[in-house]
């Protein structure tokens, strides 16, 4: 800390180049953010703005949209596909794709239901079995991809059909299995909500955690004579998060049921994956493979292991999403994981700003992306418009997201941030 005030450390090691233009403190941080956005490094800004626009438009069309009951429901509803899209982020980051996440989640729903209801397994054991099955599917994809060099697009397209077939077979003649309403699985997905006080505690913990990691990191950087975010800026950021989140929580508990534990689980998964992607060697390898496979290989990265890990993670999380979907619906049937689940998961990831070409994206992409998708779906349902409209609008939003990404990429290139 003494480094901060002592004149000897006036210029940090990483700011000594005379070509750098950078303000100090809070003001400098704001300026840097602004110039980054101008340069096309939009980050999560478009998707956040998109959410605001969607909120305003649907609120004008139907004043129930922004009611706390609807928002609380929307959050819960977004979790299953959100979890599926979380796995997809990893696959897309390496420049591959998994088109079968919908089918895998459907099969996983069916397997959970059959093991739990028909075979009488413990529900948690059934869940573990379903997720393990997902992992095995990913392992098979990875082996086919690595050994035979078949494009992942084709492998998973084959998987899409094959696992849909197996799902129908597993469900048998009836084609539908109901989960008992009093089972832990269903109550977790439908009825377990965080008490209001605990929500505030969670929000406070997250804000405090953000400040603490930021502060400790900045202190370590100052000790190493590197530039660091000022304590004021960190405090302002954490306080903004605290106030914003607390306001949202307060609103959600007005006449709605608040935040479900399932949503908390989803957010926890997002935070864990974000950590893994940004702060571990594995995460850097995933980005490196997505950016330049040959360079990654020559840098000594085990590229096969990276591909295997992302395919396994993709299908495992898809299977887990399927379990949550079955629990939320209290049933597994022939249409589980069918219809728009696949494309919604992919759309969520892309809308969130993850590149289809690999090497660019984040775990938060799937959280914000799925909120956009689910908001549209929820808003159109409130307006009594059927799936015809939902598909069309979602398609248009997806296209807009991709166009925005392309424009931003060009801007990045011309501002030297590509």
């Amino acid at each position, binding site marked *: 800390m003494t480094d901060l005030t002592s004149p000897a450390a006036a210029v940090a*090691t*990483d700011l000594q*180049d005379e*070509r*750098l233009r950078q303000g100090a403190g809070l003001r400098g941080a704001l300026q840097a953010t602004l110039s980054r956005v101008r340069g096309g490094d939009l980050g999560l800004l478009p998707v956040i703005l998109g959410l605001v626009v969607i909120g305003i438009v649907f609120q004008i069309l139907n004043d129930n949209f922004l009611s706390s009951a609807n928002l609380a429901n929307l959050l819960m509803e977004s979790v299953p596909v959100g979890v599926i899209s979380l796995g997809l982020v990893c696959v897309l980051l390496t420049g591959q794709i998994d088109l079968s996440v919908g089918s895998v989640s459907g099969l996983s729903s069916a397997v959970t239901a059959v093991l739990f209801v028909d075979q009488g397994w413990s529900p948690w054991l059934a869940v573990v079995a379903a997720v393990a099955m997902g992992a095995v599917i990913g392992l098979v994809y990875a082996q086919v991809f690595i050994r035979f060099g078949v494009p992942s697009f084709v492998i998973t397209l084959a998987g899409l059909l094959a696992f849909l077939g197996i799902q129908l077979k597993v469900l048998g003649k009836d084609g539908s299995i109901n989960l008992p309403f009093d089972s832990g699985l269903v109550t977790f997905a439908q009825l377990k909500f965080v008490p209001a006080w605990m929500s505030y505690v969670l929000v406070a913990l997250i804000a405090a955690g953000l400040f603490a990691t930021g502060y400790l*990191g900045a202190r*370590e*950087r100052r000790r*190493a*004579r*590197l530039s660091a975010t000022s304590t004021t800026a960190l405090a302002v950021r954490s306080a903004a998060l605290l106030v914003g989140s607390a306001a949202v929580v307060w609103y959600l508990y007005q006449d709605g049921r608040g935040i479900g534990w399932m949503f908390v689980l989803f957010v926890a998964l997002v935070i864990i994956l974000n950590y893994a992607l940004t*702060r*571990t*060697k*594995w995460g*850097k*390898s995933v*980005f*490196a493979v*997505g*950016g*330049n496979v*040959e*360079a*990654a*290989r*020559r*840098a*000594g*990265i*085990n590229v096969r292991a990276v591909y295997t890990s992302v395919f396994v993670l993709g299908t495992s999380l898809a299977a887990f999403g399927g379990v949550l979907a079955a629990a939320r619906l209290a049933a597994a049937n022939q249409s589980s994981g069918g219809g728009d689940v696949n494309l919604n998961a992919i759309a969520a990831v892309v809308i969130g700003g993850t590149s289809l070409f690999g*090497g*660019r994206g984040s775990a938060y992409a799937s959280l914000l992306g799925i909120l956009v998708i689910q908001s549209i779906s929820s808003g159109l349902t409130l307006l009594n418009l059927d799936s015809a409209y939902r598909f069309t609008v979602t398609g248009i939003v997806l296209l807009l997201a991709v166009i925005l990404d392309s424009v931003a990429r060009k801007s990045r*290139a011309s501002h*030297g*941030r*590509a």
Partner: protein
Amino acid sequence: MSTGSSSNSATATNAAGKAATGKAGGPILSLRGISKTFGAVAALTDIDLEVSAGEVLALVGDNGAGKSTLVKVLSGVHTADAGTITFQGEQVTIQNPAAAQRLGIATVYQDLALCENLNVIENLFLGQEIRPARLDSVAMEVKSWELLRQLSAKLPTLRIPIASLSGGQRQTVAIARSLLGDPKVVILDEPTAALGVAQTAEVLNLVERLRDNGHAVIMISHSMPDVRAVADTVAVLRLGRNNGVFAVKDVSNEDIIAAITGATDNVVSRRAARTTDGHDSAADDSAADGAAADGAAADEAADDEAANERDERS
């Protein structure tokens, strides 16, 4: 004439090569009888090569001579079909790039092999991050600055993606990366190929600094001035075979070019003779140069055809 001269130069210069390597102690890396075929094409046949600590070995040869294949064998991208590699007195096998890195053989590829979407620090530490489960970004940034300052690199910031750097800056990053694991042998594949005048000089300074720090350097280059500027020894490859090892101070450019092309009467020497019009002192070095300088344009065309035929036979 051409076939005779190439075999002569090979025997004559083996002795010169031994003399050059002898002064710096035993070789740190030596190859014996390395061969590599791709399908029906023998890319490398029976290659011998030695390099010692504190020595810069220039590896030269025409396109398709097998330089890059040899580098890939050394760096673990390809494995040799036959032959032995001895590193620090022990026979080793290099199965993959990671194995080469562990041994202490670092390679800077011609295409640099950087990930454009990652920033400078991430690229420098790719595959050898500090603290894998909770990356120590501060230590990595400090070390990166240290390394790049040492190479007097001119990078304003390290937190920008490689995509926004210039060619010379990228080359510096690639060389800096190769030095991270404190390698014994550094292999540079055409380090100056895409660089401007000042940047080329920077890279050559860098090569000398590597040598002075006791690294063994293998540098592939097409540029004779660069080779003469920094190399101690020149090893010539031709059509996948050894074609002579020279101590740089005892050999003329013409001899090296003759070994590269496999003929003293070659397109380079004829062009040199034609452009200098026979008055330059360099033209006196070989009889072929003189003959070409005297001849009329028609004769040169005939010479060209003859030389081509000889090349095909050898």
